[in-house]
């Protein structure tokens, strides 16, 4: 059994596909590629695929990571060929490597996630700058989500905006993505005083405690 790691983009066609369904999409892709995923032990054996970080519904990403385990010995080049031959709308593979079978799970190494957020409706860029400065000055940002209150402020590591062409602004935010300390970018836009639905969210980078690839993809 060997373990492999893939970095991929999740694009428009899979925008409304959640984490569990993405798992099934990968399983089916491996089946179409005739790659034998290793299965877990037990009464309900499951194919061994692990995603690094769940991506909220309607977000797209240029930096998703997952690990998978294959039975038997397979050349990495033939795996990549097989995967590339079977198309899946919404998945674009960027990089793949074999990783040490005993290296820790991606989820436990994950520390930060960076998002690029662009507005879909007109917003005032000066006001946006002031709103960003306002919440960065706060010591705490108590918010409620799913009937629980929590402090959003410590989860915001970086936050700034830049003006793109015309009326489009881009908000860059680096948020904590540790277990039980994960910031959501739509919570940040809400804290900035906007309707979160007025933005499009792209995850552009995942930060890990140690390198996840031997070479930079």
């Amino acid at each position, binding site marked *: 059994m060997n373990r492999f790691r893939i970095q991929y983009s999740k694009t428009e*066609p*899979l925008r409304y*596909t959640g984490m569990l369904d993405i798992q099934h*999409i990968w399983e*089916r892709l491996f*089946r179409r590629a*005739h790659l034998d995923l290793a299965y877990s032990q037990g009464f309900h054996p499951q194919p061994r695929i692990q995603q690094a970080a769940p991506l909220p*519904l*309607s977000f797209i990403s240029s930096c998703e990571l997952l690990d998978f385990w294959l039975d038997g010995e397979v050349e990495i080049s033939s795996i990549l060929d097989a995967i590339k031959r079977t198309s899946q709308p919404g998945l674009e593979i960027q990089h793949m490597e074999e990783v040490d079978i005993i290296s820790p799970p991606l989820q436990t190494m994950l520390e930060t996630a960076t998002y690029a957020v662009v507005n879909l409706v007109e917003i005032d860029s000066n006001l946006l700058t002031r709103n960003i400065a306002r919440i960065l000055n706060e010591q705490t940002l108590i918010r409620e989500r799913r009937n629980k209150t929590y402090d959003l402020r410590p989860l915001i590591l970086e936050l700034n905006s830049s003006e793109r062409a015309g009326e489009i602004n881009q908000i860059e935010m680096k948020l904590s993505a540790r277990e039980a300390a994960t910031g959501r970018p739509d919570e940040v836009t809400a804290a900035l005083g906007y309707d979160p639905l007025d933005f499009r969210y792209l995850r552009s980078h995942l930060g890990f405690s140690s390198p996840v690839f031997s070479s930079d993809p």
Partner: protein
Amino acid sequence: MNFQTPAQLDAWLERTLPAVQKPGRYFGNELNQVCKQWDSVHVHIALTFPDIYDLGLPNLGLAILYDQINKREDALAERTYVPWVDMEAAMRKSGIPLFSLESRHPIGHFDILGITLPYETLYTNALNLLDLSGIPIFAADRTVTHPLVIAGGHAMLNPEPMAPFLDAVVIGEGEEVIHEIISTVIFWKKSSASRSELLLDLSRITGVYVPGFYEPEFDRTGLYTGLKTLHPEAPACIQKRILGKLPAPITDFIVPSIDVVQNRIAVEIMRGCTRGCRFCQAGMITRPVREREVDEIINSLETALDKTGFDEVALLSLSSSDHTQIKEIVDAIQNRFHKKHLTISLPSLRIESLSVDILEKLSGSHQTSFTLAPEAATDRLRKIINKPISDDALIDVIRLIYSRGWRVIKCYFMIGHPEETMEDVRAIADLCKRVVLEGRKYHGLKATLHAGISTFIPKPHTPFQWHAMDSYESIVEKQNLLRHELRGPGLKMSWSDPQTSLIEAWLCRGDRRTSIAIHQAWKSGARFDAWQDQFDFSRWQNAFLAAGIDPYDYSHRERQESEVFPWDHINIGVGKEYLLEDSNWSLRAELRQDCRETCYVCGILPTYKEIRRNNPGDHWGCPEVNSVDPTG
């Protein structure tokens, strides 16, 4: 309607979808969907199963038509489904018309809207879908600017309740007739002929019913007496379409990007059934039996697995064990795919030891339950419904199932037949208890029997179509008795909602006047009638009241032999005289064997003798027709 360009709709979706449940339902973009250039074809067809995406996407009939149409160069087929209530509210608020998943064109821009109606509780959804598309609800109000609205599916074997809403109805199998319809529409589009001329051309196609050319007639007491043809060329009788040989199974299944009710490849191994269970409408209307060959099934399965990556396969038929090569099919699947972690389901197995061997080979690690459908628990009633199995034989099979490792057995029973007594109902409870006691011998208290109790509805085109449905009170009493009896460890019971059964009976047995009630029910808010949390019986009661119809006359009046039914103009190939004869056999508790052993002359062969003659071979369940019929 507000949106004019696809870009405007895209912008609206981007803003709206994150706020509705399961937005993936409205987004398309799945693996294997077919996107053609809109202007590259002559005819645009929108196909729909009128319920939410989750239920509609796995529908095999629609998938077959999608495949058939998109293989043509001159036509395209796209899909649409009914939005769930939250999305419907958002669409109506913004004036967004229903759109197709592939190209996001408004449904009103297509040439044809094809609606599959396999069961009656979809009717109000179909009206809602028309309304959301901006298409006039009544066919008579449509013009050349509107799509042709064509329905098909099992419920359309009595099309009258939906007739005023439909431009045309396909009776029977769609694979061939769809091409004739498309060619007719292409020819018409190139001509300057009127819409009514197009409808006349469509009515000349065997299996196509154009309701606008007919008017129902009633006597002074309101009794239905028949259909009057309004056009000299309209045929008095519509003959069901069948295929002489089933085409190769489809392999390019659309793979949804979200979880739907059935995420699987479905291969129809056989169409039709020769058992002749008298309550079973499907068994009567899908005759004759036609089988697919082992190699064709296995090869298409292999291609479909490669194209989809699904890990679940369903081998469909009305009676899987009756496929003459079922053992070969199962062996071939085991040989070819045993390492692939596939889950293979094979519904409708007969109650015999062979079924246990078959399912054991297919399912390996016994994760699923084993399903049997004895339907009745006394020999007398089993003879009446023509589904014989002795209690001892049943228990032998049950013992075998539990002993081979299954812990959960599901048994389906039916209550409400007019010949049924409370003794027959009690016998269901006794049998269930006996079953679970057998299970305990192998699995202790973990042995489970799940009893599914359905309600008898005297369906059109069956030998029971002359019968009355059981009274509401009696059904509730029988259900209560069973609920009281079937309690305790290892016993579970589910049952059909008796109010939903009434609606099904009214809508499946209705005549053209029923359409007034359907329209009224929809106007007062009825939709998703198959969903218990959306269904409202009082809306339907009020709708029938407002329409001035006593619906119990459809469901609860025992019919004279001479009764003219609202579906008599639909010729399913099985003769009304045969059904009546079988009804009389039923009263005498006389059995009919599997008709592959003895042909009972149900009418299929005379009706389809040409097709049979052109398709010789033993893939048909009926005998060969070799010689030319001297009577012509």
